[in-house]
């Protein structure tokens, strides 16, 4: 069965009201990690912060590199590079932490730079092939092609299980 723009949007952003007038539009928070542009559904993002109240931790769960202390609480911060097995980078002037909602909890994601909030037509979305999904540990299932840009769309629900199933302290590889 052919995937429609609404189906694609629903796959990326389950909270979308598919019956709304702008159902085929999708708003993405775009960011860079290791020079690659990624996007995540803006409706899932809670806040973007400078890493000023970030406290690094060592030997913690796989992918979690520290915690962020915000106004009322603290949340774990993950580095996608660690999940992908890429060497961790250093924090720069443009480094930001994207705090997003996942199954009722807050998670932070390190981004080298948050570039913009972009409105895209659901028709620009395409499914990534199975082989490519494997190389990305299936963190993204869709990508968006816009002129000379290719944005990988993170499936936020697939990031959290990696955190949940992460080995406990002292059992890291």
């Amino acid at each position, binding site marked *: 069965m052919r995937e429609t723009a609404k189906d694609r949007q629903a796959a990326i952003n389950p909270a979308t009201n598919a019956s709304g007038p702008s159902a085929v539009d999708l708003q993405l928070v775009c960011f860079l990690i290791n020079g690659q542009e990624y996007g995540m559904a*803006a409706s899932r993002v*809670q806040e*973007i912060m400078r890493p000023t109240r970030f406290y690094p931790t060592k030997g913690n769960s796989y992918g979690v590199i520290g915690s962020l202390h915000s106004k009322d609480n603290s949340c774990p911060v993950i580095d996608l590079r660690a999940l992908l097995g890429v060497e961790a980078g250093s924090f720069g*002037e*443009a480094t930001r932490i994207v705090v997003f909602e996942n199954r009722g909890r807050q998670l932070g994601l390190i981004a080298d730079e948050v570039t913009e909030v972009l409105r895209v037509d659901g028709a620009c979305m395409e499914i990534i092939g199975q082989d490519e999904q494997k190389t990305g540990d299936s963190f993204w299932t869709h990508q968006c092609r816009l002129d000379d840009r290719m944005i990988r769309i993170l499936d936020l629900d697939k990031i959290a299980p990696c955190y949940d199933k992460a080995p406990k302290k002292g059992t890291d590889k």
Partner: protein
Amino acid sequence: MIEESEKVLHAQHEEIIRQADYLSGEVKLLAINLAVTLARVQNHDPQIRQLEPEFTDLIRRANDTAGQVADVVKAFQHQKLMISAIPASSEVIAIRGAFDKTEATLNYVYDLSRKMIEILTQLKAKRSEGTNAGNR
């Protein structure tokens, strides 16, 4: 004496560049957070849904303008170091143009923000009226 004053001038320019960079970063962070908030709430209200694309586009342009100001100041500084002379009038015009553009964009953001606040205030009033009516 001249070397001393050049050093002071250089330090002042470095400070302006640092502040322009920081301001650009802050405007961008604030603008992106505003756009994210609008993206989250727009499904709850048709008026916000109607205004949101214009507002997000404006935020994008405000980002671009803030970045341009930082770039112009940097370019000016680079040019100044290269020729060690008073900047040509075209550069001054470019800087003034960038600041004028920033001012115009920020004024527009201010007007539109006021409009958004008015709508949100009306919505809050309507909701509290509804809640009061329900409690009676």
